[in-house]
């Protein structure tokens, strides 16, 4: 196999095709009798109150930020983990230092109360 990603690309194609086909069949077979009440936004059986946009907690954003930092970190750690058994012992400590520096960041965020849901 020259490029394994060719297979993945074809898989994406088929993976898109099958759900599209399912929705298309559903759209053909199902009845189509739209009316205003049926299409109104659901809100526990009453008319919708106010804007459909609700204020979100900024907390979500902070968790996403912390996640981003750790996500980038794990990407660096994957090649390290793959080649670890072929490397000398000090490579282990390099990885451990890398993780410890980031755990220090997590502890800092924790102590500053950023991980609290208020």
């Amino acid at each position, binding site marked *: 196999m020259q490029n394994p990603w060719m297979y993945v690309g074809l898989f994406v194609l088929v993976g898109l095709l099958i759900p599209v086909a399912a929705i298309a069949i*559903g759209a053909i077979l*199902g009845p189509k009798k739209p009316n205003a009440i049926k299409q109104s936004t659901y809100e526990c059986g009453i008319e919708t109150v106010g804007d*459909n946009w609700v204020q979100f907690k900024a907390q979500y954003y902070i968790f996403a930020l912390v996640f981003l930092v750790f996500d980038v970190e794990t990407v660096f750690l994957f090649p390290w983990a793959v080649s670890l058994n072929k490397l000398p012992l000090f490579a282990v400590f390099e990885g451990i230092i890398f993780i410890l520096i980031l755990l220090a960041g997590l502890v800092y965020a924790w102590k500053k109360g950023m991980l609290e849901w208020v």
Partner: protein
Amino acid sequence: MEFWKDPINTIFASMMESFTSGGMSDVLARVLIYLIGILLFVTFAMVLDIFLVWIERKVVARFQDRLGPNRIGPFGIFQPFADIVKLLIKEDITPVGADVVMFNLAPIFSMMSVLLLWAIMPFAPNMFGVDLNVGMLYLVAAGSIGTLSVIMAGWASNNKYALLGAFRTVAQMVSYEIPMVAALLVVTLLAGTMGAVGIVGAQEGVSFFWLSPLAFLIFLISAIAELGRSPFDLNEAESEIVAGFHTEYTGMKFGLFYAGELLHSFTFGGFIALLFFGGHRLFGLENLFPTPIWGALIFIGKAIFFYWVIMWIKYTVPRIRVDHMLAFNWKFLTPLAFILLMVTALVGRLFLESAWLVPALFISNILLAWLTVEYLKSHARKEREKEEASKQSATLAEQH
């Protein structure tokens, strides 16, 4: 006999020959054969999915002391077909104010993100889609497409509950991705490769469950959170936000979300089997018949077993609160997962190629778990004492 030893490659070679003998170019023939293979493969996944709906309904009924579907066919086995017919002939409603394109794309991406995982699933030796050398990262990447589909559905529905559900789900999915990736890192470390086939191969002697039971637990918990199943079903939370991000979906689009969730659970069951329980191996039983099809059947059996375990947890444990969910991840699971990663790296490297590798890793895991439990106990005791002391001083102040 050649066919039974290596069915996929035998079929591939014979098809390749018949295609190219007609003067077709090599690349085109390859693409066509792949397409046919993938179509069959995905169809198999979808048929299995239909079967999973039946298992789910039957098992939940038993957990709740009911009979479950039992009218259509023996044991109600044809019930999901009736379900599909019902979903197909339902009206497809798009609410006003919805973003039509993204509203329709979301269920498609949701299903695709699950199907993509099947590309790297190694059912048995010589029976897998493709062996990527970045397999574990591929698993994470497919998961992020799933996250994206949730946020698309929530935003495009133009509904408060859908948006709230989407935000909760995304916060949960991204948070629990971290301990899950750390558990995957432990497995990568032990196997020395990220490819799924390589990881199964590395478990020739001992399953990774015995090398790192803690990593298995962390992976199981974070997988359940990724799936959004109870106790982490905050995304749906019927009593709070109607149905979460798919509140406004009807008919087959809802069906795709639902089927995607079930297939996702099964797929994660399969990943637990391949990461921690040796894939197609079962105490030497896999050598009973010299064909990988038998191994694939064992693998599917294992996957269904872990699917059942996930269901067991789902129907036993009540829902967790949103702040507890995030605190549990960031203050407990993530630090624990990274400490486990460091311990495994150190112990695994020190005892490399020694006979003591397995016991040393197992004991270090147990020790770490014990220390964690002891720490939690003492922490809880301190908290309780503090609370009692403050209560006492409050009552004293009242008396004075």
